[in-house]
């Protein structure tokens, strides 16, 4: 079980870094609390902001948290590639699939923890937790995997110096395009097309739909298809680039 040994190593390597705990857990919690306070303070006034309501934050903040998962997996892969540690493992019986599985699985407990913590916060702020809420939490998982896949792709493509900057830029862009701060309807038509073609807004819609969209009696497949398509694309590209870079880095 080479992949399992490697998964454990990656998990320990990540959670023992205080920065990863700060960014993966504390930062999303702070964002949640700030938005929740804003929401409470403007309740009933003309400045009512629907995306800052408890039900909305319950599904959008984990998506924001996953962007940090993407950052940390990208940093881990790029750092491993820059050191002799990965060279050593490549002289062992480890195969490319062991590396990809090991990096992915190690991030899943952290991602699940992010979903759980935000759910607890949302319940504390009055979320009525129903079966649909649970479904929404389950629907966060494909988005989480998509962000891990994107992190793998970035870490495989970029060196350890560039990966932090590029990932941070992508965190800003993906958050902006996710509809978390601003509804797409508030933007011009061109922007709306970009937003709907990219996965970030669609992953929010997918989980929001599970949370309260179902009450409309219909299920929208388009965002699900888009998120899954990006998930597959990111992983296929990550595997190809990782395998290629492993030979190039040797």
């Amino acid at each position, binding site marked *: 079980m080479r992949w399992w*040994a490697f998964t454990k190593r990656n998990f320990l390597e990540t959670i023992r870094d205080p920065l990863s705990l700060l960014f993966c857990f504390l930062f999303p919690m702070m964002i949640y609390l700030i938005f929740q306070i804003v929401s409470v303070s403007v309740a009933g006034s003309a400045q009512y902001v629907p995306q800052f309501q408890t039900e909305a934050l319950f599904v959008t903040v984990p998506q924001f948290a996953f962007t940090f998962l993407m950052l940390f997996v990208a940093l881990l892969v790029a750092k491993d590639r820059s050191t*002799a540690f990965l060279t*050593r493992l490549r*002289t062992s*019986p480890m195969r490319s699939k062991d590396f990809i599985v090991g990096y992915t699985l190690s991030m899943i407990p952290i991602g699940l923890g992010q979903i759980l913590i935000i759910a607890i916060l949302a319940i504390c702020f009055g979320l009525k937790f129903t079966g649909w809420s649970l479904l929404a939490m389950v629907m966060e998982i494909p988005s989480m995997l998509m962000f891990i896949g994107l992190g793998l792709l970035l870490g495989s493509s970029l060196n350890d110096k560039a990966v932090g900057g590029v990932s941070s830029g992508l965190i800003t862009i993906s958050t902006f395009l996710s509809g978390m701060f601003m509804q797409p309807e508030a933007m011009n038509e061109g922007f709306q097309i970009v937003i709907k073609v990219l996965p970030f807004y669609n992953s929010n819609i997918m989980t929001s739909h599970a949370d309260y969209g179902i009450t409309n009696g219909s299920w929208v497949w388009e965002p699900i298809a888009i998120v899954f398509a990006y998930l597959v694309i990111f992983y296929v590209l990550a595997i190809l680039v990782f395998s290629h870079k492993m030979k190039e880095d040797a």
Partner: protein
Amino acid sequence: MEYAIETIHLEKVFKKENTPAVKDLNLKIKEGELYGLLGVNGAGKSTTIKMLSCLIKPTSGDALIEGHSILKESDAIKSISDTSPQESAVAANLTVKENLLLMSSIYGKKKEDAKIKIASIISSMGLEEVASKKAGKLSGGFQRRLSIAMALTSDPKILYLDEPTLGLDVLARRELWKIILSLKGKKTIILTSHYLEEVEALADRVGIISKGVLLEEGTIPEILKKNDSKNLEEAFIKAVGQGDLL
């Protein structure tokens, strides 16, 4: 099988370079022998190790490791050999024990067997005092020791030590020499180095490599005699064709 390691016209030309990094290399290394590959930076030592450990493919030629071809049987070779790379190759946020356990698990060792083996390695490598410390917090000497210890957890028949004492102070280097000497005869070892005194102190036989070409090989007395030299430094300088520096 006469030799533990045998290279047959082994050659490597990197795509971006015109000149071969390793050219027509023919080594024959016996079981339990410690073979020192001596050369200046960029001579082709690490490229040779990378080919023998199946990290990169040769452009032409082949090598047999315990009878297995590096071209066709990389899985078999990876299960019987291990490498301690030029830089310390450790997981920084894992403890010394966890690093050793990681390598044992990757090589498919049973947990109970691994624990016994790891305890023995920790003791023989003098790692007891740092066993519970994170690898990233260790000194350069201890990190290099751990790096070699990690290569021993799989109990490899063949061990590649690529510049094992590079960048270490004199005391840490001597400590590591003692450890390497304790492995002599138990493993077949290729040790690359550009420190002449290191190769002189450790190796059974020495190969002098320059610009990818193996210029000479033999025991130290044989190399000294061939170059009509009093010491290895003089012999090395003569062998690489820089006699005017003497």
